[in-house]
């Protein structure tokens, strides 16, 4: 399943400039708001669901080469964070829905945790 399908199905708002979503295929999903857990538990190329929106999420996403970060509950990164994401080629997607809702929908769509 491509990121484009996920964005369409879940009605996600892209916050960053990269839009080659049909070229990106998330390998797995991971949800946590503690960055140390993400660094230890998320898989390379995975999709990360979190309600954190601070600058460090970009560093973690770049470090782990994540396919995208879905920021839930309408949390909004500041302009510097979005600029940093663009610089690093990190895809940030936004939704007003909760993490629980998004993870449930991703699972339904066939995205698993490995």
């Amino acid at each position: 399943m491509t990121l484009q399908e996920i964005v369409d199905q879940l009605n996600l708002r892209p916050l960053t400039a990269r839009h080659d979503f049909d070229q990106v295929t998330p390998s797995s999903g991971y949800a946590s708001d503690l960055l140390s857990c993400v660094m230890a538990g998320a898989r390379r190329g995975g999709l990360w669901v979190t309600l954190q929106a601070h600058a460090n999420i970009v560093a973690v996403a770049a470090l782990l080469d994540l396919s995208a970060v879905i920021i839930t509950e309408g949390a909004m990164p500041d302009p510097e964070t979005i600029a940093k994401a663009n610089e690093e080629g990190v895809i940030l997607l936004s939704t007003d829905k909760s993490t629980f809702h998004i993870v449930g929908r991703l699972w339904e769509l066939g995205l698993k945790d490995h």
Partner: protein
Amino acid sequence: MKTYRAELHVHTVLSPCAEIEMIPPLIVQKALDLGIELIAITDHNASANVQAVQRAAIGTTLTVLPGMELQTREEVHLLCLFDTLEQAESWQAFVDEHMPRLENNAELFGEQLVVDETGEFVRRETRLLLTSATLSLKEAVAGVTRLGGIAIPAHVDRKAFSLIANLGWIPPDLSIAAVEISRHLSPAEARQRFPQLGSYPLIQGGDAHRLGELLGANIFRLAAPTVAELILAFRNEDGRSLTFHSGALDNPEGQ
């Protein structure tokens, strides 16, 4: 009794997120320019630049307390303040035993530089500092207190790395000396927005990652710039006190 304008939350170039201008002589000069008499150096999980800033302050009116901004297992940032370098070094040794072995990626997180009192390069810290120690908040507070230091949860009004955001409230059995709020609201607003603050003493921190972020919002009346005196000031005891420098606020309305 003497008045000390204080900024107890200052990063140096050892913190990956700090600007390259955060070197000892410039930090000391900026503090003096602002009439600040007391600072604490609080790098993320690290204290290797404390002595350099202390040396840069020799012969000036500035006192530099050794400190650290520890990131606990719960991703809560905790200011750990001490009187002596020896205490800070003991604390550092303990923290080092509880740090994950992750390499810093300077391109993503930023450089982590140990420098001397002139700001000259000494070495790079290769371990990633912007991560959690495996210590719980409770273990950290107990450890700092045991060494004779004080623990102050940092910027609790923020959404990230904040005790209130991450834990919801302040655990009642936590022996913290005070709670820090950020520059973004006044102490009165903080108490209104966060009833969890209860009767905890508040300090306001600049969380300075660049020179322009030194705030010096806290005005202490102390007999000497020591941890024991700070504790008395937090309790408003024996003529010691803590008030706020109203001019230091970004949004002084609400004072």
